[in-house]
């Protein structure tokens, strides 16, 4: 694979992780909650896609509608719980970790710990690829990139053009005064957490299009997703996408030029540098927080 091919493929693959990171970043930035259960929702989204597509034969991409609704509920309920019991930022981390390991175990019990993969009759995308000029990329990766752009644009539009979206931004910038004007953080928070869950389900679906599934996968995602959240800026929507492309591109290039094992080294060294010199993220955002 040429270096250019490797870099671009890496960047496109990174966009899948950007989709995974988006919900986590938004909830962290606006609600000050680090929700590790987000990874559990991605996992469930992936397995639900697998299950629904395999049993009903419906196109896996379509099945995400059900998965997204289910994970919307999951995310909303968890957030409602955090609100109800006034959980602190630190404790939310621990509790969501508990929920994550419960989810992983449940998935393992239901679908076994073996690798699962959608049959090619069910998932026509895995085997196909598309040429962009002289370069050729697997279809699942391109689909993921497409979804990433759509989700980020949609999120940005919602945040900036809709009334509730701007209310959410206001809440993120000055909680008390936003409240003084009637912006009820509880309702908004639950909606946001639900939306984050839905994006997690989409991330899971995209993952299942191209990869085999196994219950321990969340622990492999954590590093890259956190790197993207940090580099993109916590709560920064477009930053998440750019960071995903950046992390993916760098990983791909490093793998081609040096070694695949070197990619984490480069990416996380970049994260350390970012934390020291630009803790708010590499990509500036207008938001005051």
């Amino acid at each position: 694979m040429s270096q250019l091919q490797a870099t671009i493929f890496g960047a496109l693959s990174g966009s899948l992780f950007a989709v995974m990171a988006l919900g986590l970043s938004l909830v962290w930035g606006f609600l000050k909650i680090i929700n590790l259960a987000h990874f559990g929702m991605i996992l469930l989204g992936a397995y639900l896609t697998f299950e629904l597509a395999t049993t009903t034969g419906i196109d896996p991409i379509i099945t995400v509608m059900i998965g997204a609704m289910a994970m919307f509920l999951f995310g909303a309920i968890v957030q409602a719980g955090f609100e109800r019991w006034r959980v602190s930022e630190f404790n939310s981390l621990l509790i969501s970790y508990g929920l994550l390991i419960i989810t992983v175990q449940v998935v393992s019990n239901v679908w076994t710990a073996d690798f699962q993969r959608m049959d090619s009759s069910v998932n026509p995308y895995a085997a196909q690829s598309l040429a962009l000029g002289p370069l050729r990329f697997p279809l699942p990766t391109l689909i993921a990139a497409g979804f990433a752009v759509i989700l980020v644009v949609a999120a940005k539009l919602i945040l900036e053009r809709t009334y509730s979206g701007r209310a959410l931004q206001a809440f993120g910038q000055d909680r008390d005064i936003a409240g003084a004007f009637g912006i009820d953080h509880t309702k908004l928070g639950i909606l946001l957490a639900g939306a984050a869950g839905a994006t997690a389900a989409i991330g899971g679906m995209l993952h299942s299009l191209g990869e085999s599934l196994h219950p321990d996968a969340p622990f492999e995602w954590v590093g890259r997703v956190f790197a993207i959240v940090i580099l993109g800026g916590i709560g920064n929507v477009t930053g998440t996408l750019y960071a995903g492309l950046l992390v993916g591109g760098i990983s791909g290039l490093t793998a081609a030029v040096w070694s695949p094992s070197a990619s984490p080294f480069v990416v996380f060294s970049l994260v350390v540098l970012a934390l020291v010199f630009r803790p708010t993220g590499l990509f500036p955002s207008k938001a005051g927080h």
Partner: protein
Amino acid sequence: MSDRGWIGLLLVAVGLAAVPALAAVFDFNSFYLVFLSGILFWTAQSTSWNILSGYSGYFSFGQGAFYGVGVYSMAVFFGRHGVDWLAATVIGGLLSMLLALAIGTIAFRLRSLRGEIFALLTLAVPFILAAVVRLSDTIDGGQGIIVPVPEYPDFLGSFQTFFFVASAVVGVLSLAVAFVMERTRYGWALFAIRDDEAVAEGLGVPTFKHKMISIAANGLIGGVSGAVLALNLGFVSVEGTFNLRVPLFVIVMSVLGGRNHWAGPMIGAIYIHTLQNRLADSGFDGWSLIVLGVILVLLVLLAPEGLMARFGRRPWAVGGVFASTLIGLGSWGGWGQPVDWLAVALGAAALVGFLPGRRGREMAGGRRAHHALEIFEGVPAPVEVGRPLVLADEAAKDFGGVHALRGVSVTISQGELVGLVGPNGSGKTTLVNLISGALPPTSGTLTLDGKDLVGMPQHRIAHLGIARTYQIPRPFHSLTVRDNVAIAIMFGRVPHGLEVAREAADEFLSLVGLHHLSDQLPGQVNLHERQLLEMARAMATRPVVLLLDEALAGLNPVEVDNAVAVVRRIHDSGVAIVFVEHVLRVVNQLATRIVVLDQGEVLAEGEPDIVMSDPAVIRAYLGKEGHARRQ
């Protein structure tokens, strides 16, 4: 933290030492040695994590890095190159400690590195390390390394016994380090840092040095423990070593057991390891993570302070239930294995800890008693105004375009009681922050007795003799009133030990009239008493200049009079005082000189009567009238 702790530590050590002997005599299945070795490994890892994150509050996700360095040191030096296993262990510990110091140097030097960012930094480190290990053929190269069984002394009998002894030594060592730190100035510095780092630094605690000590201890023990474990693994690989299991489990164990106590992480390790072991063995393997997850969620919601805190309230009941359940099941023998009995006994003990009842010393809102005030009588003795102490020369401070102070020149001399007044936003608190060293000036100079204060670390400014209080009192919430004052003495110009400091604290508590509340926690005394505590603590640093920032906010008239009397007593003891105040009638009574700030500049200064009649000052306070208009 009573002195019964010594007994506890000794019991643990003796008990562990007895195990191999008992094993030989009663011919235990080696399973129990393996089981206990596991507990000891997790005890060492969790305890070392807790020394940093629990004691200092700097939350680390990077335990895997220290553990990994230890494991790979053993694998490379002993496994691959045949270096003596003991030497390899030491190397592993030292390398890990070096890594810890490197992380600390980067993370602790930067003021901008808040707790959250430190945690993220430590999350990234293991990933970098894993990549380096995998990349480098001299280390792993992706193949993994075989760790052969080491040579051990014959009298130990089996390898498992040897491994148990090694694990026990490391485990007890980690507990001993935590125990000793908790009872000496090192631990106390960390508790102060955890409760309020800025205040600690301002009282004279060298925060950077102590944070480095704690992370170094974390690294050293984590590395040694990892190295010893590698002897039992037989084969190490990057995936097996650098995963999220160690970093996450040490957090869960420490939180479960309690982060405030040296034995807390050990308790957590015992509980989690036993639970996991039983779940895996009982065929409920498909439930182990679920049960663990549910317990974690419940515990964080119901007992966020950990089990040790609960056990500490009724230790005899808990111990009794545990022992009797264990012995009872053991004698009956009709069900299960010893580890099963242990699990049930642990569960029973936990239940006892959760029974409603005596709530112990840490009460939240509750009893805010109104204690009798010791009102001081007497006429203030006039104090001579002496030589200049603090000199601010054209000190200015900008906050990104906002000129909080524009070139203020002020002199504070020995014996003065200077009132610093001015309307909202005039720069009073900024000036206090500049003099105390909390903020650097944008321009201008600040000196004490001729020594340049700009750029000096705050704890050294405190040692030179400048102390300050905060408008909203910032006591160390987890320490008693007496210990709050004792910290200032422990880390004063001349360092003192804990016991000496505690005795000396009484002098300052009497000065402000808080002696009768010495054993209370700050949360249990009212606002006025906490403000007096601020003053006592500041005085305990033996300052030459004391900066009081709105010490009267929120007080009723009786308390205000008492506070004024205390300030006079402090002044009589020879300390120059600068106090920021809004209650102008008090300022007029108390001050020898008034400095009026307005819009970041000195508007007027001099004797109270004269200054407060100055038309410019009156205008600044009451406002200029607008152009005439009809009513």
